[in-house]
């Protein structure tokens, strides 16, 4: 009831204007490759200081939410994830855009983002304190199993050849070994090159691996970049709504996965969307279409990564531990505004929490018209753009996106080298997306494994650390199910089909 009162209070023109501006700026910044949600929030931080605490926090929250969704624009239209959270959106979004359903893909991404965003906020509202305690139960072993679970997605990204997909995944893991070892402090595979000491940065590598091959192929002929069938006009909203309704279980499950992963400190939207995508591809009825333009892939990715926005704030508000990197920026803003963080926040400043959450709720709903409008505008611009302008524009964005995240020239070189490698090996049938997964999840798995091993050795209970904790057992169960179930299901459906054929003949 109290929340409803704050909802009505949040309908003030000022709060609505602040939320809309935050969304608009967030979407535009997130749509630019390389400008992450953390960057977007950090850049907008000074503006929030000029506002009162609640509007300031709503502004930053909506920038975060908008940039998370905005990452899907470039992911869908030019196969360049605007933010790391939208890496999985490229897997199905770009193939949809290629066959002329880019507008539909953007509408689906927008609706899924709203569903995920609202789920995260509502979970925050009702379950913040107990879920914050759950987040603290995640130790190194759980991170290790979580990363392994994320790697099982490789099976659905292998484009018909699992072994080549696995080799690509191992190649990504090999790339993740470059730099200073988090475990031993060794300089691994750097060969006294200072540019490699920090390792292969994920954003420039992702841009190179996924987008440069697209740019290289774009220049090869005079055909249009994306198909634009005449039938696709204004009915994208209804088609997207129907696509989501048909996959409502996927949307709900992915939102819950995003919410749960979001509250784990430092896990973030990229891992949330990977786990949700893996789950969605495994449970889909037509799983063979995942990675080839299935709307379910976009729904899983976008609802999961937006759910982390609200849920990531749970450990931030309750424990003072940021759930995701942009939450660290919001945490800093709260400190500057003099808002005390911790359990007392919910008793002494409950009005701030409730007004903030109600403002975020309204802003999330507002994302629907704002996102759909911007999506339609940008899709139309990209499809009508002549190739002689689009190709150099994409090349320019590749360079900017690689450079902007760390202001480092070497990142552009890394983008270029990995992009050329990705294009060459794709000619040999080795897919690039598993390389990104290996690169992203390799360090998490290695660090989790080494830390858990050290703790286990110190306690003389290595097996217990890895295999006897409840969350670990649940994650191991998920991994086993991910490996064993798909072939079993395939075999059973094949047998059923054969029986049907026998009956008919």
């Amino acid at each position, binding site marked *: 009831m109290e929340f409803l009162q704050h909802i009505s209070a949040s309908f003030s023109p000022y709060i609505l204007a602040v939320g809309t501006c935050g969304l608009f700026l967030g979407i535009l910044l997130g749509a630019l490759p390389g400008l992450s949600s953390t960057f977007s929030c950090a850049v907008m931080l000074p503006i929030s200081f000029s506002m009162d605490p609640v509007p300031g926090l709503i502004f930053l929250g909506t920038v975060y939410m908008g940039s998370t969704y905005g990452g899907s624009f470039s992911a869908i239209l030019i196969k360049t994830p605007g933010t790391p959270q939208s890496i999985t959106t490229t897997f199905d979004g770009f193939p949809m855009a290629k066959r002329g359903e880019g507008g539909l893909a953007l509408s689906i991404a927008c609706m899924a983002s709203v569903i995920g965003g609202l789920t995260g906020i509502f979970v925050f509202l009702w379950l913040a304190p107990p879920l914050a305690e759950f987040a603290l139960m995640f130790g190194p072993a759980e991170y290790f199993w979580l990363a392994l679970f994320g790697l099982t997605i490789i099976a659905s990204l292998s484009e018909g050849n699992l072994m080549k997909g*696995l080799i690509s995944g191992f190649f990504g893991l*090999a790339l993740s070994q470059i730099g200073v070892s988090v475990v031993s*402090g060794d300089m691994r*595979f750097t060969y006294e090159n200072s540019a490699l000491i920090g390792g292969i940065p994920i954003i420039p590598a992702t841009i190179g691996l996924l987008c440069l091959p697209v740019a*290289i192929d774009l220049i*090869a002929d005079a055909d249009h970049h994306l198909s634009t069938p005449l039938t696709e006009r204004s009915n994208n909203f209804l088609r997207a709504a129907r696509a989501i309704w048909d996959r409502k279980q996927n949307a709900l499950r992915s939102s819950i996965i995003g919410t749960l992963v979001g509250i784990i400190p430092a896990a973030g939207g990229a891992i949330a969307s990977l786990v949700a995508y893996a789950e969605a591809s495994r449970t889909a009825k037509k799983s063979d279409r995942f990675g080839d333009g299935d709307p379910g892939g976009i729904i899983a990715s976008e609802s999961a990564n937006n759910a982390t926005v609200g849920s990531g704030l749970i450990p931030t508000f309750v424990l003072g531990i940021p759930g995701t990197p942009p939450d660290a920026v919001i945490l800093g803003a709260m400190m500057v505004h003099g808002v005390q963080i911790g359990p007392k926040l919910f008793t002494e400043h409950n009005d701030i929490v409730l007004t903030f959450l109600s403002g975020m709720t309204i802003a999330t709903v507002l994302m629907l018209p704002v996102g759909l409008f911007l999506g339609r505008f940008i899709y139309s611009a990209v499809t009508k753009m002549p190739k*002689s302008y689009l190709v150099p524009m994409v090349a*320019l964005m590749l360079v900017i996106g690689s450079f902007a995240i760390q202001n480092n020239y070497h990142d552009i070189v890394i983008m270029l080298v990995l992009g050329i490698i990705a294009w060459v090996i794709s000619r040999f049938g*080795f897919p690039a997306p598993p390389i990104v997964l290996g690169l992203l999840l390799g360090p998490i798995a290695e660090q989790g494994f080494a830390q858990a091993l050290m703790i286990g050795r110190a306690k003389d209970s290595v097996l217990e650390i890895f295999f006897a904790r409840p969350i670990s057992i649940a994650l191991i169960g998920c991994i086993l199910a991910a490996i064993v179930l798909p072939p079993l299901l395939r075999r059973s459906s094949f047998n059923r089909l054969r029986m049907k054929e026998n009956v008919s003949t």
Partner: protein
Amino acid sequence: MFQLKMNIAGKRAKNILGSLTFGMLGTFMLYAAQDFESAGRVTPAFIGCGLLFLSVLLIIVEFSKSELLPPPTAITGSLVRRSLFIALMVIWVVALPYLGFVVAGCLAFAIISAAVPKNSNKTSTNFALNTVAGVLTTIGFWVVLTAFLKVPLPEATFF
């Protein structure tokens, strides 16, 4: 029939070459891992073993039932233009620290734009329009990123 055999041979050669390359990478990782501390050696050695094992497995599968493996994606469109684009990108990235973002960006934009095949005939007016568009876009990005978002883009050191 001969053509089919040639296609299968070509496909097999490509797959084996790819597998051998990754197998060599795996062997190299296994060898290089010996120089690391014991804690830091486990993961690279594991990855090296994985790469080597999968590569050998792929070669075995290739020889046993290659017709079941999907063929590598066929290249459509001009390979020359692709190579030209890669060369232009390399030159652009090398020149970036010397010429700076604006000059290198404008030049690269105009040249890449000219390299794109067009449905209509290329004219000097088209080239001029693309150059102007490139200059405006590059400067627009430069202004937004440096002035509003405070991203310090590379500056020229050559002049």
